[in-house]
């Protein structure tokens, strides 16, 4: 349970980190890993499932941490979260609570208090664990992932980011610098829930649903899942079906069944695909019914 030897580079700035990344790529057997919070990488190193030749530690780069408000792409605002912002800081941040409530709710499910003190938002988003909360939140809320390399800056839509389990559109010489979450109307309905065997485990079934409501109708819907496929999943057909529907006319069971039909859950020793679909359908039906009822209260 000891990591294999590697070279350790403490990056002092973003350019320094990018230079180290580019340098590692130029090396024939170069295999660099970025060390952010380390709450996934360190176990992989200990188990020797990862044996990088270079570790680039980005924890001391001050410019990578913090939450700010920025202009969004459609005229509204967005919340920008630096890659090394600790998960417990995301959890406690007032801007996140006010503008990205789904992220705040999801963070309470991420790991444990002790791992959230080190674990970062950017680390989880860029790793792309299909049963983790952060990749699914980014996907569901149409977040934009900003990646830097020595070649320049790319802004990648989360919809284009997750290619497979732990496989993302990030290139080997790119570093995730920040993730931006576009604003939703402040009175949107936000549902985030997951089913796990123990607190802090990866989700067997994880659900995110956000509904913008205007004049009693759904003006916009976003539905996402984690633990329900090889990547985080979106239920785009169910979102479309909800759009324009009056709250009183929503059939939660039908919405949940349609949404679940768009997922591709895998089988493993913890749960069959059938179980995941069944739990996901019941969970979504129950939470959507409750959220709609709550919103319709006079």
């Amino acid at each position, binding site marked *: 349970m000891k990591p294999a030897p590697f070279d350790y580079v403490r990056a002092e700035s973003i350019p320094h980190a990018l230079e180290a990344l580019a340098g590692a790529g130029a090396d024939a057997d170069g295999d660099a890993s970025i060390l952010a919070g380390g709450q996934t990488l360190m176990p992989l190193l200990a*188990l020797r499932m990862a044996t990088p030749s270079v570790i680039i530690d980005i924890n001391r780069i001050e410019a990578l941490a913090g939450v700010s408000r920025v202009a969004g792409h459609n005229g509204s605002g967005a919340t920008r979260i630096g890659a090394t912002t600790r998960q417990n800081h995301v959890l406690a941040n007032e801007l996140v609570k006010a503008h990205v409530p789904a992220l705040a709710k999801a963070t309470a499910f991420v790991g444990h208090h002790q791992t959230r003190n080190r674990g970062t938002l950017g680390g989880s988003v860029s790793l792309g664990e299909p049963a983790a909360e952060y990749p699914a939140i980014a996907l569901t809320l149409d977040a934009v992932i900003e990646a830097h390399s020595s070649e320049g800056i790319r802004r990648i839509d989360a919809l284009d980011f997750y290619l497979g389990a732990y496989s993302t559109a990030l290139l080997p010489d790119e570093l995730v610098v920040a993730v931006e979450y576009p604003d939703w109307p402040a009175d949107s309905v936000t549902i985030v829930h997951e089913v796990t065997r123990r607190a802090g485990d990866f989700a067997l079934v994880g659900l995110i649903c956000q509904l913008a409501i205007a004049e009693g109708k759904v003006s916009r819907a976003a539905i996402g899942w984690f633990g329900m496929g090889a990547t985080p999943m979106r239920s785009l057909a169910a979102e479309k079906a909800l759009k324009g529907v009056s709250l009183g006319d929503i059939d939660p069971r039908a919405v949940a069944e349609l949404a679940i039909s768009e997922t591709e859950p895998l089988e493993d020793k913890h749960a069959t695909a059938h179980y995941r679909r069944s739990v996901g359908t019941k969970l979504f039906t129950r939470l959507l019914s409750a959220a709609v009822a709550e919103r319709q209260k006079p």
Partner: protein
Amino acid sequence: MTLHRIEIEVDGDVIAAEVEGRLTLGDFLRDRAGRTGVHLGCEHGVCGACTISFNGDAVRSCLMLAVQADGARIGTIQGLAEADGTLHPVQAAMQAEYGLQCGFCTPGVVMTLASVLEAEKTPSEERLRDVLSGHLCRCTGYQGMLRAAKSLAIQAQTAAGDA
């Protein structure tokens, strides 16, 4: 192999050393700093036995490299009690409420509770259950730990009420 020179404050002592990049903070504390009270259980972030205070926050010492802690202030179970042996309130409460049996997970549990109670003073039972979920205990169970933590939260609440 490159060695990195680090200086870490451990329980108030400044310890300088040259370490390999791959040395974990947990191994450093046990083997190089004499803090064998830091218990390594799973060594991959699951069990919580190795939890220490890193600049005041409870973190798993097996999930950090020693070189990352250069310049940091580390607290371990061995620095909690007073020099004359007087137990830290969390240690005393764990003893009073039978919060331990074999003692393997205990240093980590105590470090988490000390950090959370210091920062939050009067955490709710729900919050205490949440932070204790970051630890595995295979003998006593968690009820004694929870009683110990609740007794301290209640004491803090009473003290705040009296002030």
